[in-house]
């Protein structure tokens, strides 16, 4: 009789869910930009790398942790606003593929600039959170992953409150619903876009520090965008809640698939299995679980 190890299954599931939260952190940065400007910002991974590299380089030069955090936030805000002003504003009303290609190019420019400014060495990043596991009913749970989940939850709560209860948040939602109508009622779109890019920079900073502490701060950090894409397809490109739910689903399903289906394919399937899940969702529900359905009139 097949002897199923439920405890092991649960351990893989919990590990997958916690990994999924990390994917969501990256996906949220995409959502912020897409929601308000319709741009799929492929440079989010490069921004995340730039933020982590700036922070760790400042800390290694003796700048105290809080000061380094504030300084990096300022750098990311300036970078975000510069991107909006120099690259994207001149491309307003251009087709989405043009904007996407612009951010693709931007990601290479940011990566190159990061190497130029901070060098090519890899760095360790210690956020002061112990990464040793603790055991609950025979299941090992990572303290660091729980810490990351708490940060993600705080960030989502903050962003939700911001969008719902502040004037600028309401303006964001108006722009997200209909840019032309928002413009017609007097909302200053360039200002809103500048703020959104600043917010995306801040999200990149938080995600960069958590991913940097997990992987080390090195250039492959920008590849974490590849983990965020299936999350976005699944959850919807314009939903923060979707980014969270999508992350959890992708994280859990890819880990379970690797452990239980992987051996039948020789292993190493999790990187593409996430995309299989995303493709299936794309066929069934093109706007994702929580994305807005586009209604186009002829």
């Amino acid at each position, binding site marked *: 009789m097949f002897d199923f190890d439920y405890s092991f299954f649960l351990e893989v599931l919990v590990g997958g869910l916690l990994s999924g939260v990390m994917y969501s952190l990256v996906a949220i940065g995409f959502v912020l930009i897409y929601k308000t400007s319709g741009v799929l910002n492929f440079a989010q991974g490069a921004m995340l790398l730039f933020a982590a590299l700036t922070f760790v380089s400042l800390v290694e030069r003796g700048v105290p942790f809080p000061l380094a955090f504030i300084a990096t936030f300022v750098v990311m805000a300036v970078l975000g606003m510069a991107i909006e002003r120099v690259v994207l504003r001149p491309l307003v009303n251009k087709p989405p593929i043009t904007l996407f290609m612009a951010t693709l190019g931007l990601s290479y420019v940011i990566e*190159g600039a990061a*190497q130029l400014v901070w060098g090519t060495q*890899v760095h360790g990043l210690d956020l002061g959170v112990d*990464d040793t596991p603790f055991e609950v009913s025979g299941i090992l749970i990572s303290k660091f992953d729980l810490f990351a989940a708490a940060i993600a939850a705080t960030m989502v709560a903050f962003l939700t409150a911001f969008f719902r209860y502040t004037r600028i948040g309401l303006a964001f939602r108006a722009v997200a619903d209909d840019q032309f109508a928002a413009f017609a009622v007097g909302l200053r779109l360039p200002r809103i876009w500048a703020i959104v890019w600043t917010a995306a920079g801040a999200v990149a900073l938080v995600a960069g520090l958590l991913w940097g502490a997990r992987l080390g701060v*090195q250039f492959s950090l920008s590849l974490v965008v590849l983990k965020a894409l299936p999350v976005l397809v699944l959850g919807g490109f314009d939903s923060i809640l979707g980014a969270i739910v999508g992350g959890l689903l992708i994280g859990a399903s890819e*880990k*379970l698939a690797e452990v239980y289906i992987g051996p039948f394919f020789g292993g190493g399937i999790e990187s593409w299995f996430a995309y299989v899940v995303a493709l299936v969702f794309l066929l069934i529900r093109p706007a994702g679980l929580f994305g807005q359905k586009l209604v186009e009139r002829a």
Partner: protein
Amino acid sequence: MSYLSNLRKAALSAALAVSFAIPLAASASADEQYFPLQSYRVGPYAAGGTGFFGGFIDYLNLINIRDGGVNGVKLTWDECETQYEVERGVECYERQKSHPAIAAWNPLSVGIAYAMIDRITQDKIPLITINHGRTDSTDGRVFPYVFPLLLNPYSESSGIINYIASKEGGVDKLKGKKIVVLYHGSPYGKETIPIYELLAQKFGFTVDQIEVPHPGNEQQSQWLTIRREKPDYVVLRGWGVMNPVALKTAQKTGFPADHIVGNVWSNSEEDVIPAGDAAKGYVAITTQASGAQYPVLQEIIKTVYGAGKGNLEDKKRIGSVYHNLGIVNGILNVEAIRIAQQKFGNRTLTGDEVRWGFEHLQLDQARVAALGAKDLFHSINVTWDNHEGDGRVTFQQWDGAKWNVVSDWIAPDWALLRPIIEKSSTAYAAEHNIKLRTPADAEAASN
């Protein structure tokens, strides 16, 4: 009229340039030996590239400054940036190949090396793939110009198992043990799968080989599987970000770092520093010890860095794993030229003559000590048909700040591996209509 006049002027200028350039090139190649360096100083693998090429250039500089070159032949080089990308590596090859007096190519990239094999064989110029490359290029009968010096992937696997055996008290103690090989999901990572199976059969241990998809920044499921299997050791055959993530995830799942043994591309400071405390106790194989205490390193610091010509921007990296690998690579290239000069004269050599030098590159421990590299690396014994050269390996353990040697020099089981290598190389020869070389073929060198 004006057009014809300009054309005439241009033609005259070109003729003059050619007439000056020919003797200049000839005189340059009369007393210079050139190394085209397909380096990578930017991109995701820049940390390894800057260390290796920095060490290589530091050693070439030492020979030029201290000795005035190799028996009066000055060493020259230039760098072409590849970012570790194969197509850029090939572009660099095309750009650099016309330079006169090329001694050898040293790309430090499996992909670029593979792409160059046919080209350099036609050009008759050696391709050095120290510690990496095609395993079957060890067979010089089939690959006359390719040299996987010191270590090929099969020898590496055997060296790691021999080390584990030494920890357990002998090869007979391996029986009944369980070893997991965690490998990078790429041709490089998969290359040693049959060898570990073979070694497991021979010594009676159980092996489970688990793939980590590229780039390796998620390994939760692999390490949970490892945790369930409870192996005695994990062999880490990683690359880039996969290495620190493996160490961190091992810690998360409660697997001890001192029972993880890394391969030659999981053995640098760049692999352990990002893992922080999780890397403490981790052990990895190497062909060259790290540290700056060796006489040749001290000479480089005094002579090259003292003259302001050191290649590493960050002097703290002097003596790091990649820097020392570059220095050892420099020693082997320079000694091959020196050995070839003994036969062909103290002059600029052709690529084929340098190939002859590599095929007689026999440095025993006394010669290694005379070169200031005692304990930096053991020895090498390259022959016309053995292009690896029986390199010994040692093991280093990370203490959180530096690597410390924790084993003697260990010999891989070459006799076991040679028939497998020959099977692969002769199949390659049959597929490509290559006639197996004889000692007489190898002895002849064209100029």
